[in-house]
C-alpha cells in the first residue's frame, strides 16, 4: 500500500486588486423617507466620480453610508474590499463633509494636527502631513490663524485639507464648494485637479453641473435616492440627446399663448424660456416663423449643445436647482 502523498495545493488564480469602492443595493430609510433607494455602483482606481443631483436627492446620505456614519437598512458598501465603517475602511477613506467640521478656536495647523492624531499620525509623519495639507490648501501663510478668523473660502479649503491629512486612497467630497465665492471655488477646483493628477480616487457630490463637467471622469445622476444614469459626461448627453441641439428662446406675448404654442411644437417651457430639441440648426428658422404666426414676439434666441443640466431635466422633468 503506497503511502498517501499530500497533494500540492494549486495556487489560486491571482485575484485583481479590490476596487476602491463597491456599493451594492444600498438602502437607507429615515422614517417614511427613503433617502437612498437601492443604489449600486463601482469606483475604479484613480477615477473621479461625480454624484450630481439636487438638494435632498440622497447624495450626502450615500456618502455618509460609505464613511460609516449611517448604517444602511439594506445593501453594503466596501472600501478596498473592507466593509464600510471597518477600521481598515476608515484608514483608507478621507471624508470632506459638507459642514465646516473644524474646531473654530484652534488655528489652521492645530486643526490639521488634531485630525491627524485622530488618524494615528504622530511625530515627523504628522508634521509632514500638516505641511503638505497647508501647501495643498494654499494656507501656509495662515497656518497660525484661528479658524474663526479665516475667510469662508479659506475655511472651506482647510475643511478639505483636514479630510486628507492621513493621505487616504479614496476621498469623498460632499459639496465642498457650498457657499464660496467664484474665486475661491476656482481655487478649490485647482486643488481637486492637483489631487486627481496625483492619482487620487475621488467621489465628488455637487448640484452644480459645471463642477461635475469640469472635474469628473464619470457622473452619476442621483434623484430621489436612486442613480438614474451613470456614465461619462459625453455619453450621458449623447444617450439622452444623440446629436441633437437645444434651442432656447424667449418671447413677449400672452403666457397662455406661449404655453399653447410650446406644447404644440413639443417643446418645454422653463420659466419664460421655451426650450426645443432640434436635430439640425436649420430647424430654428421654422420654429421662429411658427412663433411669429402664433402672435409671439421674439426677445432672444440661442442654440446650445445639451449638457448635464439638460440631461437631468430630460430624465427627471425638473431642474437641478429646483
Amino acid at each position, binding site marked *: 500500500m503506497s503511502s498517501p502523498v499530500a497533494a500540492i495545493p494549486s495556487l489560486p488564480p491571482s485575484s485583481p486588486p479590490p476596487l476602491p469602492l463597491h456599493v451594492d443595493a444600498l438602502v437607507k430609510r*429615515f422614517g417614511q423617507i427613503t433617502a437612498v433607494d437601492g443604489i449600486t455602483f463601482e469606483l475604479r482606481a484613480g477615477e473621479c466620480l461625480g454624484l450630481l443631483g439636487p438638494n435632498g436627492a440622497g447624495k450626502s446620505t450615500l456618502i*455618509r453610508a460609505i464613511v460609516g456614519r449611517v*448604517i444602511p437598512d439594506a445593501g453594503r458598501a466596501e472600501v478596498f474590499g473592507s466593509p464600510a465603517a471597518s477600521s481598515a475602511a476608515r484608514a483608507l477613506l478621507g471624508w470632506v463633509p459638507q*459642514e465646516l467640521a*473644524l474646531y473654530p478656536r484652534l488655528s489652521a495647523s492645530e486643526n490639521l494636527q488634531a485630525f491627524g492624531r485622530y*488618524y494615528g499620525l504622530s511625530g515627523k509623519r504628522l508634521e509632514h502631513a500638516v505641511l503638505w495639507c497647508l501647501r495643498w490648501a494654499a494656507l501656509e501663510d495662515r497656518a497660525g490663524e484661528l479658524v474663526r478668523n479665516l475667510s469662508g473660502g479659506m475655511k472651506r479649503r482647510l475643511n478639505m485639507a483636514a479630510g486628507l491629512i492621513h493621505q487616504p486612497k479614496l476621498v469623498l467630497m460632499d459639496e465642498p464648494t457650498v457657499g464660496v465665492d467664484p474665486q475661491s471655488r476656482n481655487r478649490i477646483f485647482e486643488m481637486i485637479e492637483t489631487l486627481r493628477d496625483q492619482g487620487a480616487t475621488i467621489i465628488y457630490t455637487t448640484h452644480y453641473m459645471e463642477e461635475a463637467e469640469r472635474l469628473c471622469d464619470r457622473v452619476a445622476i442621483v434623484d430621489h435616492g436612486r442613480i438614474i444614469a451613470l456614465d461619462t459626461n459625453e455619453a450621458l448627453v449623447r444617450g439622452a440627446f444623440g446629436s441633437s441641439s437645444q434651442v432656447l428662446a424667449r418671447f413677449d406675448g400672452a403666457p397662455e399663448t406661449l404655453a399653447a404654442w410650446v406644447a404644440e411644437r413639443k417643446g418645454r417651457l422653463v420659466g419664460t424660456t421655451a426650450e426645443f430639441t432640434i436635430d439640425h440648426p436649420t430647424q430654428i428658422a421654422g420654429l421662429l416663423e411658427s412663433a411669429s404666426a402664433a402672435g409671439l414676439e421674439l426677445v432672444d434666441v440661442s442654440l446650445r449643445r445639451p449638457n448635464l443640466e439638460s440631461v437631468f431635466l430630460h430624465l427627471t422633468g425638473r431642474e437641478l436647482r429646483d
Partner: protein
Amino acid sequence: MILPIVRTALLALRRDRAAFALSFVLPIAFFSIFAAIFGSHRDTVPSIKVIVVDRDQSAASRQLVSALEREGSLKVYTHSAPKTNEPPPADYTAATAEEEVKSGNVSVALIIPHGFGDHPISFRPQSDSSDSSQPVPAIELLNDASDTIAPQMVAGLLQKTAMTAMPSVMAEEGMKLSGENLGGFTPDQQKRINDMLAKIRQHQNDPAAAQNAPSGFSGGIIAVKNRAVVGENKNNPMVSFYAAGIGVMFLLFTASGAAGALLDEAESGALDRVLSSRVTMTSLLAGKLVYNTLLAFTQLTVMFLWAWAVFKLDLFTPWHVAGFLVMGLSSALAVASFGLLLASICRTRAQLGALSTLVILMMSSIGGSMFPRFLMSESMQKAGLFTINAWAIDGFTKVFWRDLPVSELWPQVGVLLGIAIALFLIARRIARRWEYA
C-alpha cells in the same frame, strides 16, 4: 418694531421645547426645594443627634436622661444601634462618644459626670461649707466647632429639661409647701432658708455671676462645660467647608459647560468627522472625561490654594495634601462624568444651560454647597446623599476639619467613583444617538 422682535424671540424659544419647558420648571423647582428646606411646618427644625453618657447613674441623672429622651428636638443615643443576631451593644463611654462627635456621626455628646446627682444645680448655698472648695460637677458638652447651632440648642434644652421654671421661685414654693406640710420651720431653719433663697435670687439676677463662671461653663441651673473636640485649633472653622461646597458647585458648572463642547462639535459636524476617523465614541467620551476631570481638579486646586493663601486654610500638611489629592480627583471625576451625562441628554446648548442650572443648583442646595446639611431636616439630609456635593463635602470635611487619615475616606471615595462610573456608562449609552444614523 418692538412687537416683531418679541414675536421672533418667542418663536425661537418655542422651537426648543425642552429649554422652553425648563424655563418654567426651573423657578418652580427652586421654590419647592427652598420651601422644603426652610418652609415646611412639619419638619422645620432638624432633630439634633445627641449621645448621652451617664457616668453618674444616680436617680437625678437617670431622670435627666429620660427627660432628654422625651425632648422632640433631640435624638438621644445612649448606645449604638443594635444589630440583628448580635448581643446588644454596650453603652457609649466618654471616649467612644467623643469619637462619634469627632467622626461627625453625632453633633453633640453629653457626659454626665460622677457626683452629678449629689449636686445637680450649678451653685450651692454658702452654708454648705464642707463642699464649697470642691468644683461643681459639670456636664461636659462635647461638640464640633463647625456646628455652632447644635451645641447651643442642646445646652438650652438641657437647662429647660432640668428645670422649666425659674429655680428661685420653684425653690421658694417648695420650701413653703414643705413648711406647711411639716407644720412650719424653726426661726433658725427659716433664716437659713431665706439666706439660701437670697443667694439663688442674687445668682439669678446678677449677670456677672454667670459671666464670672469659668471658661467653657454655660450659665444656668445645671453646670455645663462646653468642649470642642473637633476644630478647636482651626484658624478659620468654615473655610474648608465653603472651599469644598462652593468648589464642587462650580466644578459641576464647569464640567457641564466643558462637556457642552460635545454639542458644539455635533452641531458643527466636527463630531461626525472625528467619529469617521480611528476615534470611537467610547474613546472620545473617555478623552472628554479625562480632560474635564483635569480641568475640574485644576479649578479645585486653585480654589484651595486661594483658601490657603487668603483664609489660612491648613493645606500643606502631608495628610491634608494626600486627602486633597484623593478627594479632589474623586470629586473631579464624578463631576466630569456628570457633565458628560448632561451633555449627552441634551440636544442643544440652550437645553444644556437650563438643565444644568436646574440640576446643579438643586444638587448644591440639597447637597450642602449653599448651607451646611446639618442645618437641614433629617429627610433633607438623607436626600442630600443622592448628590455629588454631599459626598465631596463630607470627604473634604473629613480631611480638613476632622483631620482623619486618607483611609477614612473610603466611603466618600467609593461613592464618588461609583457615581463617576455609573454616570459615564449611562452617558455612553445615550451617546449612541451620535454614533450612527
